[in-house]
């Protein structure tokens, strides 16, 4: 039962676009020592989200994916670059000017415990966006709150409850309902299921998909779980140290990763084997993700890359289209323009540390 790849067949207009987006955070050393340093959370990143698609963003912790999410909905100011929504640059809008944009651009947070104010009732939380944006009178709002609760699979009688009275999954549904309140066009979901129990995770993922169908939503879906991202996304962006290293339509990316990092991610992911098979050979990355305060020269991934060569230390590889619909930021991509696996990858992979 494959899911139709809508993005493939019908590329919609670009709704949300980031160009050369950069976000730096000043890091003050701890109180006694250290001058100011800069944490390069996102650097020179560009992407476009088309109507109706789900753009998955994957990467390990510290890769800047959450910062990206917040920049996209303007929860933080960006250091440089632009974010435009419907073609309009929203990077420099004031809070007041942003208000109408916010109706259409919503964020769903990771932690269902932290994202709901523990001291407000669910009904209050859900009606807040409507009060802000002037949805209607009290009764209209109350009615809509009930509808929202039902839409996300909660009991309408729960309006008077407090967040702590819900389970994690239910809270996340409340969070989704809040995002839906003003009928947004785009929802940026930042790790929306990673805090949930596995059995609940599936429920929420299904909800996301169902809502997309029902309300023609566009998602930017940020997650670290490759399985989850694959399940919901039509297109994938792989991030490493604040940069995009690969972007492609979902299935080709999973079948033949183009960037060594993507490949390593896929191989690292533990998976249940349906049948008894010989243990997979896999390449294990060594070391940890470098500190984003102190990024390596050249290709940021080179310190852990099994295929790294001397060029990688010298030159920063640009993100370029290596095959149709597929952009990779690597001097030695693993796929050829025809989509085949590159030769050097085979050899290197063979000698790689298959343990």
């Amino acid at each position, binding site marked *: *039962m*494959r*899911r139709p790849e809508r993005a493939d067949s019908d590329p919609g207009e670009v709704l949300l676009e980031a160009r050369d987006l950069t976000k730096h955070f000043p890091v003050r050393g701890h109180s006694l020592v250290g001058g100011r340093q800069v944490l390069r959370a996102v650097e020179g990143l560009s992407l476009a989200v088309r109507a109706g698609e789900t753009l998955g963003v994957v990467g*390990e*912790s510290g890769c800047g994916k959450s910062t990206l999410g917040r920049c996209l909905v303007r929860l933080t100011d960006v250091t440089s670059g632009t974010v435009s929504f419907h073609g309009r640059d929203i990077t420099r809008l004031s809070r007041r000017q942003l208000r109408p944009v916010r109706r259409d651009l919503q964020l769903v947070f990771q932690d269902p415990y932290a994202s709901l104010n523990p001291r407000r009732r669910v009904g209050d939380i859900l009606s807040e966006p409507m009060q802000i944006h002037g949805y209607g009178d009290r009764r209209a709002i109350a009615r809509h709150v009930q509808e929202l609760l039902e839409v996300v*699979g*909660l*009991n309408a009688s729960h309006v008077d409850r407090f967040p702590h009275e819900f*389970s*994690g*999954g*239910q809270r996340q549904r409340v969070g989704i309902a809040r995002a839906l309140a003003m009928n947004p066009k785009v929802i940026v979901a930042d790790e929306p299921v990673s805090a949930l*129990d*596995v*059995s*609940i*995770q*599936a*429920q929420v*993922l*299904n909800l996301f*998909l169902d809502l997309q169908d029902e309300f023609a939503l566009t998602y930017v879906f940020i997650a*670290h*779980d*490759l*399985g*989850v991202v*694959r*399940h919901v996304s039509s297109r994938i962006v792989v991030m490493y140290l604040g940069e995009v290293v690969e972007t492609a339509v*979902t*299935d080709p990316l*999973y079948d033949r990763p183009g960037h060594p990092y993507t490949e*390593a*991610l*896929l*191989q*690292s*992911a*533990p*998976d*249940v*084997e*349906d*049948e*008894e098979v010989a243990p997979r050979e*896999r390449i*294990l*990355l*060594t*070391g*940890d*993700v470098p500190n984003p305060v102190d990024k390596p020269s050249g290709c940021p991934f080179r310190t852990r890359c099994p295929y790294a060569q001397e060029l990688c230390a010298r030159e920063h590889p640009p993100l370029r289209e290596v095959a149709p619909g597929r952009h990779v930021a690597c001097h030695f991509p693993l796929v050829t323009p025809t989509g085949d696996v590159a030769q050097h990858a085979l050899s290197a992979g063979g000698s790689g540390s298959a*343990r």
Partner: protein
Amino acid sequence: MPESSLVRETVRGAGAAGPESLLDVRDLTVSFRTRQGVVRAVDGLSFSLAPGEVLGIVGESGSGKSVSVMSLLGLIRDPNARVEGQALFRGRDLVAMRDKDLRPLRGREIAMIFQDPMTAMTPVYTVGWQIAEQIRAHDDVSKRVAHERAVELLDEVGIPDPRRRVGDFPHEFSGGMRQRAVIAMALANNPSLLIADEPTTALDVTTQAQILDLMRRLRVEHGSSIILITHDMGVVSDIADQVLVMYAGRAAEQGPKKDVFHRPRHPYTWGLLDSVPRPRAERVRRLPTIPGSPASPLDVAPGCPFAPRCRMRHERCDERPELAGGPAHVDACWLPRDRRQELRREVVEAAVAEGDPGDLTEHGAPLDASTPPAPEQGP
């Protein structure tokens, strides 16, 4: 049993445990007195572990997986807690032992690794100090020797430049390195049993793979048995020999990995396997889900604990099913054992096709009525 040849020579007590089992847990029950009455976090859990074997305990939050192993080591300090049953470790009953007698066992015979490497080490001491402390807690060696050993251990778990890093504080390590250091600490006294409670949950996938790899290697080299607690079926399938699936404080299914993964019998195991999206498998339109939320230990159904969420629930489920179906592979379910694979398919189909069954507020997952399964006769 794999790797049995690597089992260290150990002295076995003369207890009732079978000669090959290192740990034999019988009818372990952990209960807490609360305002709402007595809550059983673990209810009649039994399992045994052979030397060198890896047991994976899987379950969602609140299933009692952590509590059960913590109770073995006497790590539950809550004065309202009560541990019953038997846990024979080399013939000595851990449950009955006093804390004083248990202490020399902790760390030396049975070591433990916890979930969050960020908080697992005391922040104010260096990594080396903490490893040395572990060594000196059980072996009467000089500080120097302990320190040298700490360096070796760090090297062994793959910390680069261990001689320098041994003087680092935990916060100066990355998450992965910290977990390696914790493992080094756990292995310091060559324990015969290593209990790892969600050792990789807080880590990134690439790091997780490294850690699992490390554990696999060390287990071979040190010959320790391992109890691995996780909620991730993928991790279990990666490393375990035996699998114990827990739900609401009870075993839902247990058996060798192959059996549990490839011929799962319990509807909960089905759910766990099927509801997780897979990075390497074909995409599905909708994920088959388990309805409802994990049971809270405060509110476990009187019969089959999984019944409220089970699509195959029927009257028999009001009665508590015992583990049966053995010898190696057992499950606690009233469904007929011979039709399980077939029923699993039905459940998946039903789950995917089904619309919202409505709010299952108080216990009541509606049963998919299309296939009323024939109850199996008692265990």
